[in-house]
């Protein structure tokens, strides 16, 4: 086979292959992964996190602003300590509240942040004081069955 044609084919193959990699990186995945350098971490405590996992998205007003970096059980207060890694571009007031939400009825769980009105912003290693636990479907149904579904929302 002619060497030029061969080179051409291989060149084409490499270009298409790299294009596929780029497609996967940009279109399929989200390149805007929050890395350590341009992020800060805050901790939120929950009594019940439901099915929340590390790397679950942290959203505010529906926009992904960070990810769950770590989920631990705090043996002193018997609560779950969730570390959120937030993008430095987004600063939140100190009295921001965090809630564990579910996308759809059975979808994945994420953390929703609702900004407060404080003029002081959250800093690295700060703690979010106001939290709202995950809705546990079983207890919700249980409460509904016992007739007090109106107060079903925990806390």
């Amino acid at each position, binding site marked *: *086979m002619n*060497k030029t044609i*061969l*080179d051409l*084919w*291989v060149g*084409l*193959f*490499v270009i*298409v*292959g*790299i294009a*596929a*990699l780029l*497609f*996967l*990186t940009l*279109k*399929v*995945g*989200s*390149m805007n*992964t929050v890395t350590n350098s341009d992020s800060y971490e805050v901790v939120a405590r929950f009594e019940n996190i439901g099915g929340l*996992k*590390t*790397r679950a*998205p942290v959203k505010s007003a529906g926009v*992904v602003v960070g990810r769950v970096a770590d989920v631990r059980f705090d043996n002193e207060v018997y609560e779950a300590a969730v570390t959120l890694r937030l993008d430095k571009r987004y600063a939140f007031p100190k009295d921001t509240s965090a809630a564990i939400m579910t996308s*759809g*009825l*059975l*979808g*994945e769980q994420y953390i929703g942040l609702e900004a407060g009105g404080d003029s002081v912003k959250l800093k690295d290693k700060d703690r979010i004081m106001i939290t709202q636990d995950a809705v546990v479907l079983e207890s919700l149904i249980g409460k509904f069955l016992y007739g007090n579904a109106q107060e079903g929302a925990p806390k």
Partner: protein
Amino acid sequence: MLKESIARLGNRTLQGVGRIGFAVRFFVAIMLHSGTAFRRFGLTIREMYFSGVQSLVIILVSGLFVGMVLGLQGYETLQTYGSEDALGILVAMSLVRELGPVVAALLFASRAGSAITAEIGLMKATEQLSAMEMMAVDPIARVVAPRFWAGVISMPLLAALFSAMGIFGGYLVGVQLIGVDEGSFWSQMQSAVDFEQDILNGVIKSVVFGIAITTIALFEGYDAPPTAEGVSGATTRTVVTSSLTVLALDFVLTAFMFRGLS
């Protein structure tokens, strides 16, 4: 009787270990003689044509169909829970993390791996490798190393193409045919698939598979008895051994990479 079969088992084991030892030495020799493969990159490019470009058709077609099947089956399962919107996640995650690297590697092993073994085995059987040695050219540097690097470079590109094609197939069936919402298909996928965790790990997997397959294929060819029977046996062994190795490695790598998630 029992004594004999135990002795046979022992003999088999020793032979197997011995072969692994040879394979490792062979791998080290490839590493040490890789200079030529990069200094004269034309040699490697030529081999990329044979292992990479010629595997394109089978990789692209299989990727498309695997993605289409994923779209169909995934939709059937997801709709029972009313979460068809997550179809994009399902298709992309399974392809990028597992099916892309693994299925592409299995196809690569049977398409390119067997060809490499047969070629090297025949070159040995027809004394071409000896002739090269007599011409003061090291066959490991001139013949083996370029094929090794061509395979290692081609494998991740082929796996990426497989995944991309599969996602396109899933999109065709899910969005165009069944009618899942296009916006949520892509956006759910984007928010769930992570660059480092999913895509990068998939690429790392495919590079490891590429190293494993080409090493096995080249070793089997180089080690093949110089007869028609020997070469055909070696070709079969390449496909079997490298497929099993890919699956075993996949389990090990997955355990290391995604253990934190469960």
